[in-house]
């Protein structure tokens, strides 16, 4: 009983059934979502026979091995692949955030011809998957001599992430009180400074949300690296892992170890952004 009161001090016992069912659903979802990751991590520390004998078992004294990690770190350019992934992800997310915030601000704050059309195009961008245009994107990149460069990937990912970013950020820009920008205009602040000194800091929580949304698909993407940048020097981590997946033999130790290590950077990035998710920044601006 004490435990229940500690967990739900304000709700009390009457809310107990509801609370239990909500938590059960959330718990079930968490287990389903985490299960594959857990299997990957556990098995990356086991030898090959143990992986197939007992895929769900924890590594024991006998089956524990770091051979997969050794393979990955010694036999492949794991450092380079991670670096490529990191560069592409950070550049793309950074530019999506900056351009997305600017577009969201412009589209909600200023009245100009074509405003509605541009908003509409962004909305279309959310609905139409960018992969439908793969062929034309490839031929475009060939014409621009951008094949096998990270630039190609960054450009495509910006296009992929921008529509949703603009959509979400527009909603947040609308919640910023108009008086703030008007006060700044009376303070003779230029439109650029208004954006960078007032709007951008207030958009931080929203931008963290967008960053998380944008970052994960880019980090995990296999499609565009495979098509646009399959060269040895531009491989991203998801593509790099594929070299252990053979047509006849798959080096499961290495695949699982590489995947385990690939989780780490994205976890770090997520932790950084999720700190910013804290709301309540605008409280106190206007009553």
């Amino acid at each position: 009983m004490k435990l229940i009161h500690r967990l739900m001090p304000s709700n009390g016992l009457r809310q107990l059934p509801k609370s239990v069912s909500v938590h059960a659903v959330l718990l079930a979802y968490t287990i389903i979502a985490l299960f594959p990751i857990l299997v990957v991590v556990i098995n990356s520390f086991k030898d090959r026979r143990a992986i197939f004998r007992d895929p769900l078992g924890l590594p024991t004294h006998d089956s524990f091995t770091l051979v997969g990690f050794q393979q990955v770190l010694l036999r492949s350019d794991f450092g380079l692949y991670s670096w490529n992934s990191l560069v592409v992800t950070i550049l793309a997310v950074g530019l999506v955030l900056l351009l997305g915030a600017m577009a969201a601000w412009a589209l909600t704050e200023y009245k100009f011809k074509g405003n509605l059309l541009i908003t509409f195009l962004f909305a279309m961008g959310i609905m139409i998957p960018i992969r439908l245009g793969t062929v034309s994107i490839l031929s475009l990149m060939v014409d621009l001599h951008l094949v096998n460069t990270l630039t190609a990937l960054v450009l495509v990912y910006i296009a992929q992430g921008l529509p949703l970013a603009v959509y979400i950020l527009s909603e947040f820009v609308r919640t910023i009180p108009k008086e703030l920008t008007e006060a700044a205009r009376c303070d003779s602040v230029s439109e650029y400074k208004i954006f960078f000194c007032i709007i951008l800091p207030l958009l931080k929580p929203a931008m963290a949300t967008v960053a998380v949304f944008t970052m994960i698909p880019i980090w995990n993407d296999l499609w565009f690296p495979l098509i646009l940048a399959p060269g040895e020097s531009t491989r991203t981590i998801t593509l790099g892992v594929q070299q252990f997946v053979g047509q006849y033999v798959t080096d499961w130790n290495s695949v699982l170890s590489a995947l385990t290590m690939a989780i780490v950077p994205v976890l770090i990035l997520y932790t950084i952004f999720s700190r910013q998710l804290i709301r309540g920044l605008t409280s106190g601006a206007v009553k």
Partner: protein
Amino acid sequence: MASVKLNNIKKRFGNVDVLHGIDLDIKDGEFVVLIGESGCGKSTLLRLLSGLEDISEGDLYIDDERVNGRSPAKRGIAMVFQSYALYPHMNVFKNMAFGLKISGKDKSHVNEKVIEAAKKLKIDHLLDRLPRELSGGQRQRVAIGRAIVRDPKVFLFDEPLSNLDASLRVQTRVELGKLHQELKATIIYVTHDQVEAMTLGDKIVVMNKGRVEQVGAPLDLYHHPKTQFVAAFIGSPKMNFLQGKVQQADSENSQVVLESGRVIRASIDTSSLNEGDTVQLGLRPEHIALNCSENTFEGTVTLIEHLGELSYLYVDVGQEGELVLKVNGDNQHQAGDRIQFGIKPNYLYLFDHEGKALTRINAHQSPSIPL
């Protein structure tokens, strides 16, 4: 500091006319209050003055310079918003210094200015707090401070006190009055609160449906409202209105007959009207006296509101409806009492069927609470 001149200012939103040609002269150092019901265009007018909204037609001069189309900054105005509009991510000092810093003033000058303004407003101990850590009154001061540091030609206030609680509002009102005397600044102030308007304004502009109804000094509006709208707007509780017909049109001693047949004598010039014309008789609650034997009424008290030093009596006088009386606080009447009261002919107001006021003769100048 500067003078402001409005010449036939009009504003349209699409096809809707919001302001129908406003003319106004504001002298250097004057405290002008724009007052009116919500939606009358007073806030829109302020935004036109600030430059946040474009003027559709007409000319706006600040210090004899036409400033139509200029940005807010170039007009030399500073605005204090109803919602304070403090930058939430900056502390008080940065909030006040932001505008100065942006305009490229050197650091020591900015510091000096901000600290001087903060001392004036007694917020110098709050400089490193964030807006969310301040009370409503303190935020209001910071907003005013942010305006002061820029040494603007004209201050614009958009209902600055309406978010404060009652006691703080009175206190801040007094401080604003003192601040105006100290700064000798030209201030244009929008409010819907007639007490704020009466106490603060050198000049009050009463607005109604996008037009200026009357401009004048506070007591001028109180004693000589030009229209029924102004008469109803200025004074609390509201002026009582009774419908009647002119029985005797005269340049001095007019007579009005009410619906019940009661004849009222009023020292008002009705020579422009004909006998039988419909008129509205205006009686201020503070001018109706219990011991007055002229123009007497009789009625039943339906409600008493005690405010301490005085009380409001709501009296049902039969066919004419209900009248409000302002009486002394120690008055012993109770609901249900029959009472008799009257009003002197030179205390009355009279409005023709268009709501225009007729000239009062020997109008009593000082409002008094009759005993």
